[in-house]
């Protein structure tokens, strides 16, 4: 039997240990954020948002260089991904929440989580095999397909939980005034959970926007803006995470700084969309 004193001592040790570990987990996060900000802020200027990257000698001789094509490319590829993933993701979410008795439902829930847990690099291989190979070239579209597969399970899951948050009584009310089930879903349940759906898209965007691995062999990269509008879809496109990777492994200090700056922009996208998502969720529920 331990004495009370020893038990209190033990309690104190454990609190310290737990607090210490919590700090240890959060410290790297803070350090990373601070580093990215401090190292990158010097390269954030007007040129960064208006100029194209070009060759390394451009940066090294101090000529204007930036990542405007990368930022546009990121938005284009992710927009394509959202367009592709949204209908299927919402469909899957509706199926999970509105047809809970369907016999495929448990399978689908598991498959959805499994797809979500699949390494992004495999999603890139899938897009490469389904889009790049048959189309015979790297394209923004193939990058969009790869990211759509990243987004799909996230949108499905958040759609499901957004719809679940609508009380059953509302559906029953709809049915009671004589609306068929599909009208209840399409005109009552989905509009009512609009905020939840937007949240899902934001989270999916935040997760997909930072994925580099699937883009290396789909959207490929580009040192310039696409020279024609359709080139953003059917030609090689630069994206932030993939460009960040190649800047990081380059030997040029000027490009390293651009890489940190790209990190700031990427973090900005991620954190802002997460923050909006969280605020929306909190206001709504």
């Amino acid at each position, binding site marked *: 039997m331990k004495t009370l004193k020893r038990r209190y001592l033990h309690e104190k040790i454990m609190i310290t240990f737990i607090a210490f570990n919590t700090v240890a987990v959060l410290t790297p996060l803070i350090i990373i954020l601070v580093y990215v900000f401090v190292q990158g802020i010097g390269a954030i200027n007007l040129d960064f948002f208006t100029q194209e990257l*070009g*060759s*390394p*000698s*451009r940066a*090294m001789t101090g000529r204007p260089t930036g990542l405007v094509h990368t930022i546009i490319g990121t938005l284009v590829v992710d927009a394509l991904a959202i367009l592709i993933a949204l209908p299927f993701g919402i469909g899957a979410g509706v199926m999970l929440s509105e047809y809970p008795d369907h016999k495929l439902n448990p399978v689908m829930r598991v498959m959805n989580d499994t797809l979500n847990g699949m390494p992004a690099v495999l999603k890139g291989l899938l897009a490469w095999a389904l889009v*790049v190979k048959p189309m*015979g*070239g*790297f394209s923004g579209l193939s990058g969009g397909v790869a990211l759509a597969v990243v987004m799909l399970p996230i949108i499905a899951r958040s759609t499901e939980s957004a719809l679940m948050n609508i009380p059953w009584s509302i559906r029953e009310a709809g049915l009671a005034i004589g609306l068929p089930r599909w009208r209840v879903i399409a005109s009552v349940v989905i509009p009512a959970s609009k905020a939840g759906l937007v949240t899902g898209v934001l989270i999916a965007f935040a997760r997909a926007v930072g994925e580099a691995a699937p883009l290396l062999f789909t959207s*490929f*990269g*580009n*040192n*310039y803006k*696409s*020279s*024609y*509008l*359709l*080139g953003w879809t059917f*030609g*090689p496109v630069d994206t932030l995470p993939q460009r960040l990777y*190649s800047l990081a*492994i*380059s*030997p*040029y200090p000027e490009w390293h700084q651009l890489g940190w700056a790209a990190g700031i922009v990427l973090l900005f996208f991620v954190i802002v969309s997460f923050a909006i998502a969280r605020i929306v969720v909190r206001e709504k529920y």
Partner: protein
Amino acid sequence: MRSVSKLIGLALTLSLLLGINLHGQRRVELIGAGASFPAPLITAMADEYRDATNGRVTINYQSIGSGGGIRQFSEQTIMFGMSEAFLSDEIMKNIEQSTGGRAFNLPITLADVVVTYNVPGIDKGLVFDGPVIADIFLGRITRWNDRRIRNLNPDVRLPRHPIQVVHRSDGSGTTNLWTSYLTKVSDRWANNVGFATSVNWPTGVGANGNEGVAGIVRNTPGAIGYNSFAYALLNNMSYAYLENSAGNVIPPSFDATSAAANIELPTDTRILFTDTPNPIGYPVAGFAWMLCYENMEKNRTISNKQQAEELIRFIIWAITDGQQLSESLGYAQLPSAAIQKSYAMIRQMKWNGEPIGRNILDGN
């Protein structure tokens, strides 16, 4: 009034969609990828060429390694490949079967592979000979103050630091040149490792691209790697002098590179001249080749004749005017023999049988 602005809007949209510049010419994007070794030069050429054509031609070159250049070129996902390992006979034969024409290896630039290192307190100019550098890359010499290194560098105080070998993790023509040199100077290397665009490294860490190797060497005290000379110069890295087969210690230089390249070229320019017998030649030098199809319409990525023509014009520009960018970036200019061979190949390039290469050359 409204209809006029509508028309302008429509015209603007159309020109954006199809890509027509202010001069009314169709804009063209040429997609290439491959070797990291000429990447600083090619991308600088791309910058320059875009200005020279008023933005009509954009060259999108991604540095993914020579292996990647060859792969994507034969998969036809790019319009031109770039490699410092020429296409093997097998690949040449496959391409001939699938496209009904040859694949051309056009020399685009010439450069050294230098040994780069990061030994605290020691500048460029450490001397190595073939067997010693091979044993370092075999992991048989592990310390900077090894007796065999000291014997070659009697005046240098070498630290006890461990040697950190850095090599390429991707398929690379730089690796091809470097390992072909090691194969020629060391039997042990020849028997155990051999040469190719990527080999089974006995020791060291792998880095992606010339960029990656240079990056790690710069960041790591005690590291030794191999890079194209351009990367060593661009990044202010220390590089070694190598003893060539005549027993002379040669600092890498444009003259020494040109001396090594001063040989009889075959018509398809597919030749390796590492470990040159030339007494003033630098022993690890080679071409970087641009890869193109003879029948350009067979490349699925080249979708119209205009693109093919613009690609040919760019190649011609790159081997002539573009060469002036070379030396400031650490590349030697192409010898005129190589340029002549390239012209001969360009003459044979066709679009659906139409000799567009010849037409452009004669039209110029």
